[in-house]
């Protein structure tokens, strides 16, 4: 389907000139008594026309990553200055609020989790789509209404023209999310961030929305950053996947590789804890303990306390991304890898990489 041979070659081509390149993104929240490192040194690329997924449990920092890219982090949160977000060759972290406005919408659009709340209840759907058109594309009046009708039709809403005059509460959940997508498409973005866009929806509706997103991507050459906690959804839609845990990316890989050959103990455990097709006799695997709040610097592996394979150094050495598995582009941040080395050699290698990257910064 979307991941046919040709599509994946396209994606590889795109990656040489990624549309979005995030490097060492650090977003912290200052509360009265602690500093929460919601996103801690996250790096990834999104190539042109490809869908990159971020998957993680609640509190892993995936939504904060999206908001950081959109420049929507507000006090008491802050994107630290070491971070770099480069969109289409332009560095976003240096932009003023005013400059950011021109990126939002026409450059990067965002679809939020709850379509109920992301539409303003007191304006008609048409009004809100026309606003997108007016702000980003200077289309107003009769032309805007026509374009809005076209967009609603494009996202699969029947009787589109009449629907324009209806208020969000008159739409069903799935329709509302379609309307939000139409509203974002009206901005004509090159890049779309979808933050759990199907979580609030039923499966059959979710399937409709996922199909719609794939279709739109193909038609418009959109690049998508897709954020979800659902392994099934990510398997369905993403070309490449980043797995987040406690503010960090612990493993990244092309989607088949990740699901077929997961390496990081967390990814493995996560995949095995999904009931899926396991029969009752096999039993489910569980991960002991809780997801920690990342409130101290990452000078160790944050998964170590829950990891069945943890050894002493896991508490001492921050793991770095190293190549694992057969495919290129498959890396994991775990002291167990590269597994062809001895334990001490592995630890040394990780320390070495860590030092290199700090030197780069200073």
């Amino acid at each position, binding site marked *: 389907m979307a991941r046919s041979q040709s599509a994946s070659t396209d994606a590889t081509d795109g990656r040489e000139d990624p549309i979005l390149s995030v490097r060492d993104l650090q977003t912290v929240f200052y509360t009265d008594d602690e500093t929460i490192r919601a996103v801690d040194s996250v790096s990834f690329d999104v190539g042109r026309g490809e869908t990159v997924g971020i998957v993680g449990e609640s509190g892993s920092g995936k939504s904060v990553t999206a908001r950081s890219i*959109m420049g*929507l982090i507000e006090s008491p949160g802050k994107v630290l200055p070491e971070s770099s977000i480069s969109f289409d060759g332009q560095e976003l972290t240096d932009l003023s*609020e005013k400059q950011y*406005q*021109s*990126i*939002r*919408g*026409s450059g990067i*659009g*965002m679809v*939020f989790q*709850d379509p109920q*709340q*992301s*539409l*303003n*209840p*007191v*304006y008609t759907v048409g009004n809100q789509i026309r*606003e*997108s058109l007016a*702000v*980003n594309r200077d289309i107003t009046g009769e032309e805007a209404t026509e374009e809005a009708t076209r967009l609603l039709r494009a996202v699969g809403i029947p009787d589109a023209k009449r629907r324009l005059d209806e*208020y969000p*509460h008159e739409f069903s959940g799935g329709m509302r999310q379609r309307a*939000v997508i139409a*509203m*974002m498409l009206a*901005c004509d973005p090159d890049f779309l961030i979808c933050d759990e866009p199907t979580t609030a929806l039923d499966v059959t509706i979710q399937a409709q929305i996922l199909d719609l997103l794939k279709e739109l991507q193909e038609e418009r050459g959109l690049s998508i950053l897709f954020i979800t906690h659902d392994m099934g959804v990510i398997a369905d839609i993403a070309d490449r996947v980043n797995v987040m845990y406690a503010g960090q990316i612990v493993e990244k890989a092309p989607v088949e590789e990740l699901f077929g050959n997961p390496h990081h103990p967390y990814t493995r455990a996560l995949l095995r804890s999904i009931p899926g097709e396991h029969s009752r006799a096999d039993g489910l695997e569980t991960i002991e303990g809780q997801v920690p709040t990342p409130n101290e610097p990452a000078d160790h592996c944050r998964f170590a306390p829950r990891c069945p394979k943890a050894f002493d150094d896991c508490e001492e050495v921050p793991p770095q991304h190293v190549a694992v598995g057969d495919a290129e582009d498959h890396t994991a941040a775990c002291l167990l890898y590269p597994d062809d080395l001895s334990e001490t050699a592995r630890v040394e290698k990780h320390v070495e990489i860590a030092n290199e990257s700090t030197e780069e910064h200073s």
Partner: protein
Amino acid sequence: MNRGVYILKRLGLAIPVMIFGITMSFLILYLGPIDPVGSILGRQATPADIRQLRMALNYIDSAGNPVPLWEQYFRVVSDLFLLDFGDSWVIQRETPVTTLIINRMPATLWLGFWSVVIALGVGVPVGLYAGLRANTFRDYASSGFGIIWRAMPNFWLAVIISGLITAGGALSFYRTAIVETQVTGTPDALGNLFTNVEIFSGIPYLELLFIPVPNPGPMFVAFKWILPAALVLGSSSMGNEVRIGRTAVLESINSKYVETAKAKGVSPRRIIAKHVGRNAIIPLLPVVMGEFYLLIGGSVLVESVFGINGLGNLFFSAVLGPDIPLVMALVFIFIVIQILFNISQDLLYTYIDPRISLGESE
């Protein structure tokens, strides 16, 4: 639901409320230990006089037997609903209550009108401003202003302001500024605020039609005259509006739809004007409608301090009279107005907030 049906339904629900309110007032006045006969006739009354008056007031029938309470009740209530308010007992013997009320109406309307205009004109903008500048010095100053206005007793404020404006007071220049006016008593200019242009003079029936044209001179005098009293009367509503306005703005500003609008690239100014503004009005509606409530209560005190001959003063003297028909008539009118306000508030809601479909609000 159709709007007409809805209004009918609301009116139907209002009837028990109205009957309860009137019954309560009736019971207080008729069961309570007050003696209108004594107050009307004074101490020197002869038993014959008393007997005659009691008969005239329908306390006893022609045979001298006391009229049962329920009979009195039905008579009073049916008269009220037929808008037959009867004659005054004490205040102006034998004058129709309706005449008394109509004579006193203009002063109260003029006072009430300006107090609402002033409260709205100051309170709402200050409240919205405080919400937009939340947690800054300016917010604290504006909110503080609202809190103090809310806490100041009307009658005290009236005493202080009228005191300061009287001769020798710190604000006595107010009397002589622009045109010299009184500040206590009923504005005598009220009688000729408008000139009636009779457009069909001479034509039978149609000559009753006229267009009121404002007279700038008397109007300004009457305005200046009433301004201090109106300011006082509107003070607590003003405080309420600041407070509720502020929280409404804050709530709207932190909503998801504002974040979505930001993600569309809409400028902050436009977001505030369009997305925040209308949503912030919704919680203000009951406050504004509730002002009527404060007006009626407050007008008794403010009119008494400023010596304005309005309905508030009339009510006060009627109660002290005790002039039962007058009190019942005024209570009836207040209840009716109150209920009409409540219904119109519900209707207004359906226009301002499309989410509220008719019939869902209680």
